[in-house]
């Protein structure tokens, strides 16, 4: 199978490794310098037209432009392999594909697979989701191998939301770690963070089980244990008085906006948004969260 990967960063190369491991022909679409060690093409449209499956591995902010350039057609199957909502619009990345091109068969893949670990052939697992069964199965065939298990799901909305939420909740984990609050707080952030995403997911019609699976708990636990995960690292910097990078800030803002749109309270995401916007000190934010009104878990 021909796999086209749009994006030549660490994650794009890791996906190419996985595709090759699964016995497929992977080519990386790039701009600027060609990716070392992998076949590639600077012509994204041609690469897309020649691929049985296209994986999009660029930052959320770049997805729209990349899709406009790649122009996947009605026969294309495109899977989003990056986490988050579109900065600014807060739009779903899969919907950017369908609104910017004639492609309708879209999906998303996410989970606790870390680029550096994958490149070193360490075991990993992810979930590929699409309302189109054929797309999820194609993603499974593209990447499933002895070093990476790929599960399939129909819950595209849930998987995209989980990916977006993990990129924000991992910042909260980083903040807690940076403030040396201990593993208990980390566990609280993971469990309560997932609880708030489940609430939002329900409002969006997603399946709560998705958040308890690889895309939610799995991905967040992996991020929490990885100091150089982008979200965790950003949280660590914020705890030490640093300033949030625009990418982290917009991801948090997009989640909060989504919560407001669906009238769902997201205390952890809101705290991260306030910290990244510089409106609240990290320690005060944690304090504020702990002083929230007592409530029941179940």
């Amino acid at each position: 199978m021909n796999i086209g990967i749009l994006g030549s960063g660490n994650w794009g190369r890791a996906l190419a490794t996985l595709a090759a491991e699964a016995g497929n022909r992977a080519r990386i679409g790039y701009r600027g310098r060609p990716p070392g060690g992998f076949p590639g093409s600077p012509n994204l449209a041609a690469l897309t037209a020649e691929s049985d499956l296209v994986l999009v591995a660029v930052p959320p902010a770049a997805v729209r432009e990349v899709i406009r350039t790649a122009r996947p057609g009605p026969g294309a199957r495109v899977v989003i392999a990056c986490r988050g909502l579109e900065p600014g619009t807060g739009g779903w990345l899969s919907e950017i594909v369908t609104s910017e091109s004639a492609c309708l068969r879209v999906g998303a893949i996410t989970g606790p697979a870390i680029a550096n670990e994958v490149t070193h052939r360490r075991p990993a697992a992810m979930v590929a989701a699409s309302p189109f069964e054929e797309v999820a199965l194609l993603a499974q065939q593209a990447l499933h191998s002895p070093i990476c298990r790929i599960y399939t799901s129909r819950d595209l909305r849930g998987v995209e939301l989980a990916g977006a939420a993990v990129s924000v909740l991992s910042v909260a984990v980083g903040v807690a770690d940076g403030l040396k609050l201990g593993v208990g707080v980390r566990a609280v952030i993971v469990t309560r963070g997932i609880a708030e995403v489940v609430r939002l997911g329900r409002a969006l019609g997603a399946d709560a089980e998705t958040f308890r699976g690889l895309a939610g708990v799995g991905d967040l636990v992996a991020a929490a244990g990885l100091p150089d995960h982008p979200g965790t690292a950003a949280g660590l910097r914020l705890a030490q008085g640093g300033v949030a990078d625009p990418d982290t800030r917009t991801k948090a803002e997009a989640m909060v906006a989504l919560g407001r749109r669906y009238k769902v309270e997201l205390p952890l995401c809101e705290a991260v948004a306030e910290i990244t916007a510089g409106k609240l000190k990290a320690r005060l934010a944690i304090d504020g969260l702990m002083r929230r009104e007592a409530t029941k878990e179940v």
Partner: protein
Amino acid sequence: MSGIYDRPSPSQVSRVLQDRCRARMAGMPDDAVQAYLADAVYLERKRFHAGRHSDPAPPAEIEAIEAAARATHQGRGDQERAVLALVDAYAHEIHNVFSQRTYKVATRVIPSALSRLLTSTSPRELVRRGAFDPDQRLIIETAAGDDGAALRALAREHTLIFAPTHVSNLDSPLIGYALDRLGLPPAIYGAGLNLFSSPVMGFFMSRLGAYTVDRRKQHRLYKDVLKDYSIDSLGRRCHSLFFPGGTRCRSGRVEDRVKKGLLGTGIIAWQEGLLQGRPHPEVLVVPVTLSFSLVLEAETLIEDSLEEEGKRRYIITDDEFSEPRTVATFARQVLELDDAIVLRFGAPLDLLGNPVDPLGRSLDKDGLVLDRRAYVTDAQGRVARDDQRDHVYTDILSRRLVDAWHRDSTALSTHVACFAAGRLLRRAHPRRPTAELVLLPPAERPVARADLLAAIAELLAELDAMVAAGRIRTRLPGGTGDPQARATAVLDEALRRFRGFHSRRTLEDRGGSVGLDPRLVLYYGHRLHGYGLQGEM
């Protein structure tokens, strides 16, 4: 040429539907065939039992189901024969033979007697009132802004599915009339069995392209037969009229969800056409919106909408349509109104929801022609059937259809005045749930006329912005000038239209205040639901 002029006989239809059913059963294991039959038996027996006093089933129907029940205990061969016997019975019930002669007569008399045709009541009164010029009452618009030439051109080459919003029992005859006015061939459509109960109505409907749908039959076999009938009809190039919302929208809203059963038959018919190399395999969808100033059945529909979900009736047989006097009053009042109904044929879509050009070719977002066959073909260009994929495609089409309905709907004075009145009630009672608001005691209902005018003016400004953004259409009095004058014109027109129409007064001028019926205000105001307007009742 449209296939409606060359309709097969009932026995031909039965053979085709049995063949399709046989093919379906060939892919089923033994226990699935048994379950298929048992489901029909169980649900039909349940229906017979529930209606044994009020709506007894014909003996032949009961007999057929009892024969099927016996077959469930026998072997697969007997079960398949029992299924096919039911298919045969349903095929004869569903299929009606179109009569071009009746159609021509009907379309000639409709301009002067649309209501008579619909109701078979009060013809003398309608004749006495003189010629009815429907073109002043019924505004027919097309997305192309033409006299229907663009749609006629598409209809010559492709099979069209007209997909309207569903407001009233008047919808299908009105659309039938509009198709004729635009010079389009007639379309077949599914009409509830209850609409055939009037001999006059039944006579015409069965010859005007209506096929019979018995919504009381809820089992899978019957639904499959209906879908197969639709696939076969589309394959024979019969333009079809589906109401994707199912039944009339109870709440008065522009539907935001659709049933995908019949709508999904389009993509199957298209692929069958491609596979069989038919000369005109393409099927296109035309969104249609009906915007009524006044809705005859409004009182019944909103009552039903306010009932608990579980108690909701799927088929209403005792609404205003069952009262000849009410229908006559409605007909009289509507005939007196200008711009009473706006019927708009929206921009045609392909079965994936993409827009199409005048030749029916699909367009991408940049307006470039795309090869839509690639959506359903494999890498070698062969059509690859995939029911799961097609189900998702129909979901996508449904969403795009709902978007088109919202864009194409026309807000009229009655909708605007009621939405604004509902907003005032909501502001006065911010914490009360809607279910309580509609039960407000009469003393708490009136709103000050000045407040209502201000609320209408505020809403008009919001609507102007929505119109400019292409999110909705309006047809309102008062031009584009002074906001207060426009609001006054809208309110006065709405008050005039509502005067004496429903048994309860929707809006009523009381000098300095306006009396209102909260339920009807909710119903008519709902037409502006789904656009993100704040402060809904």
